[in-house]
């Protein structure tokens, strides 16, 4: 029985001489919802992108369901990494839908090409998930004909159609107009309620508190503090955490220094 869905050990990531992640250890248990927060440049998006090897760590290991992306001592195998990625859905800040395909085709493509489902089956699955994100009516629209919120919901359906075991959300609502944020958060919340294992990077603190089982606060390449949401937001222990929370909750009090 594998308890940890994702296991990260001593993860380091540098771009050139610039070290972004300075030794990260953490675990995501099955069904757990982890929210990563922190100031910009703290490394939280890089960490998330290391979880499906979109960024290749400089050192350290990432395991998904007990399987390494790259076994220690072994060589990087693109095929193995690609097949492991099918277990991990990812939703991007900028949606990244394929512009030449309709919403439906976007959700079908990888199912047929990668999961090797029949067109018929892929179509049924796609319709199911588009329906789930509330876009049954808009399946035949192209991304350019959809609002940001609708595009992001298609992107979520596209990831879900692969039936992954974990979902990663990289600031999924940051690029949206404020009035469209709600519809996307609602879909994510429903997913959370169904028991999906999730790791989210977000700036929506209220949402983080409501949905998260555990909050991880990152600053300057380290995990500074982690804890249960209620405890974390009401009673932060670390000075930097306190500063960050008060800054987010009362941005008007912050003066440049």
């Amino acid at each position: 029985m594998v308890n940890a869905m994702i296991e990260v050990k001593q993860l380091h990531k540098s771009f050139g001489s610039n070290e972004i992640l300075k030794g990260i250890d953490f675990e995501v248990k099955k069904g757990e919802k982890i929210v990563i927060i922190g100031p910009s440049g703290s490394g939280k998006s890089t960490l998330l992108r290391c979880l499906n090897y979109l960024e290749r760590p400089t050192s350290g290991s990432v395991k998904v369901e007990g399987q390494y992306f790259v076994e220690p001592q072994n060589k990087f195998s693109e095929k193995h990494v690609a097949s492991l990625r099918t277990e991990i859905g990812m939703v991007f800040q900028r949606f990244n839908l394929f512009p030449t395909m309709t919403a439906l085709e976007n959700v079908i493509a990888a199912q047929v090409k990668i999961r090797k489902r029949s067109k018929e089956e892929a179509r049924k699955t796609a319709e199911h998930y588009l329906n789930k994100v509330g876009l049954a009516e808009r399946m035949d629209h192209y991304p350019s004909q959809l609002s940001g919120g609708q595009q992001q919901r298609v992107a979520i359906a596209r990831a879900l159609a692969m039936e992954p075991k974990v979902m990663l959300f990289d600031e999924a609502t940051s690029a949206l107009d404020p009035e469209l944020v709600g519809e996307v958060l609602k879909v994510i919340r429903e997913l959370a309620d169904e028991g999906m294992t999730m790791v989210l990077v977000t700036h929506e603190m209220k949402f983080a508190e409501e949905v998260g089982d555990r909050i991880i606060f990152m600053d300057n390449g380290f995990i500074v503090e982690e804890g249960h949401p209620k405890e974390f937001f009401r009673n932060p222990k670390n000075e930097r955490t306190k500063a960050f929370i008060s800054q987010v909750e009362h941005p008007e009090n912050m003066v440049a220094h």
Partner: protein
Amino acid sequence: MDVLNNLDFATAFRALLPDLLGGLWISVEATVAGFILAVVIGVLIALGRLSKSKLLNGILVVFLEIVRGTPLLVQLVYMYYVVPLLIMLVVQFWQPSFQFTFSPFLAGMLGLGINYGCYLSEVVRSAILSIDKGQTEAALALGYTNRQSMWSIVMPQAIRNSVPVFGNYLVMMIKDTSLLAFITVSELLLRTQTYASQTFLTIESYTILALAYLVISLPLAQIMRLLEKRLLKHG
């Protein structure tokens, strides 16, 4: 103004029409075959130049410079007269009795395809580079390998975005088929030349020739514009 009074377009047109149609057909064939070859070569060179191999990159850059630094006409002549000789020389090491030539049409198609392929490769390469990196990332995150994401996600978009420029090159190529006359492909120009020198209907023949090119290239340019509009509707 005897010359003007003696113009006889009707005779020239009637006599040239079958020749022109035949020549036109050859030009169209050479263009279709040459352009397909050019797209294939263009895509392959573009991918080679985007690969991580420095050696491959270097070889391709040298090749591109040679092709772009010499006239198309010289390349066609080289392809027709020299390349078969070179191939013959090499193969004769093993098989002394080996003989080899290109048909004029084949040499012309290869010459046009390679020359245009080099220019198209730059179009394809910059089109690939202009596709948002997020497209590749989305594909990789869904489990595509780099190769799969290139061929089924990035390349189709890059080609689609290149269509307007491809269209310009296609119209240019159909006009450049006139150069094939120099390697004895019996296309429009060569046939018209033959007729003009036999009848001395010089003004008429070459004017009709010029119009014949316009008759193909103008509608073709229009078709490309419509295609472009259709393709760019989304995204």
